[in-house]
């Protein structure tokens, strides 16, 4: 649930920055740092698209995965892995962008820092989710085993269910 909420807030931040980048919003509200300087630098574009747009796409994917996980669709562990990998990659990318802000552009964009913080929180929450999903799987498999009658008295089909 927390991941879905964080991804939604991150997506809203990314929408705001994307709208500025495409010219819909003229000026960014930026009480700390120099958001426009960062967002008009050459590092605000990645593979021909605004970095904010990449961020938006990533947050949307994270939001969908988080909602699937909340629904308990039956693939919790796989979803948690996807969340960890995607948010982990995004944290590395955010760290690279923040290093550009600090050491090359010499300006900080508070919205970009907010997004990087959100992504880091998503990453750590995903790690916790992955740990929980694995623990739940183990517990389920243990419950199934203990619920099954002893192998000596059980039928073949019962043994099959115990394994499953």
């Amino acid at each position, binding site marked *: 649930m927390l991941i879905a909420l964080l991804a939604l807030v991150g997506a809203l931040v990314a929408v705001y920055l994307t709208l500025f980048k495409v010219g819909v919003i003229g000026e960014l509200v930026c009480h700390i740092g120099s958001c426009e300087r*960062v967002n008009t630098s050459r590092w605000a574009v990645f593979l021909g698209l605004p970095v904010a747009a990449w961020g938006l796409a990533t947050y949307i994917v994270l939001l969908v995965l988080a909602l699937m996980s909340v629904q308990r669709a039956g693939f919790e562990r796989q979803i948690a892995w996807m969340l960890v990998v995607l948010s982990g990659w995004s944290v590395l990318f955010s760290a690279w962008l923040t290093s550009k802000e600090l050491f090359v552009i010499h300006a900080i964009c508070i919205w970009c820092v907010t997004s990087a913080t959100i992504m880091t929180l998503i990453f750590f929450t995903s790690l916790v989710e992955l740990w929980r999903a694995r623990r739940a799987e183990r517990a389920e498999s243990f419950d199934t085993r203990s619920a099954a009658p002893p192998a000596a008295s059980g039928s073949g089909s019962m043994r099959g269910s115990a394994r499953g």
Partner: protein
Amino acid sequence: MSQKSARAQRSNVVRTQRAASLKPFYYGLGVVALIGIALIIRTAQHSDASRPSIANVSLTPVKAQGHLLGNPNAPVQILEFADFECPHCAEFATITEPDVRKRIIDAGLASYRYFDFPLEHFTNSVPASNAAACAGDQNKFWEMHDRLFQGQPDWSGESNPKGVFETYAKALGLDVSAWDACYDSQKHIPEINANRDEGLRRHVESTPTFVIGTKQIPGAIPYDMFKAYVDTAAMEAMKNGTQSSGDSATGKAASAKP
């Protein structure tokens, strides 16, 4: 009932209960999304409102400044207040301005005057204005102007953009040592400041801002809108029998021509 179907039934019940218990969570997400969207819309509207609205501009004559393109005696005078590092200015310079030059300036309908309006948050704006003014000493202001806007991503945000500017000077066939001496001397800084002050006097708050005739228009407006303003200013000038008032910045009063 088999064990399997009992489990499936139990699982369905759990899922239904879970879906019901998730309702407040989805409502909460919806509320967050709505608040976020409302804030973005409000910020966007505030950003537009903070720009100066289209208004009649002062006709007070001021000292000649800026960089001229076209016939200074054309019926309409256009002033542009821009920042070389501003992305919307670059968008206008590379997309719309070629049409403006060809169809309006070269056609003799108007003259065009560029005023530096370096914004505080762009650290390379003044160096870029300096580079262009030094190219202007060798009669290549507009060539450098175009290069700077076309190559904006190459030097914007650089800690020292001079190297990039120098490659432009070379490519334009300037006397690089003279350009270099001019750039380092910063002798054009007072003119750049005077251009900015003219913008402040006119309450320019965002770049680019245009003065076409008696109208002050903020934003990188498209060509059709630009031409409509020029046509209106030309009609006003014809009606009044004067040169339209953009010339207030050239040192002549609006009634300079009988």
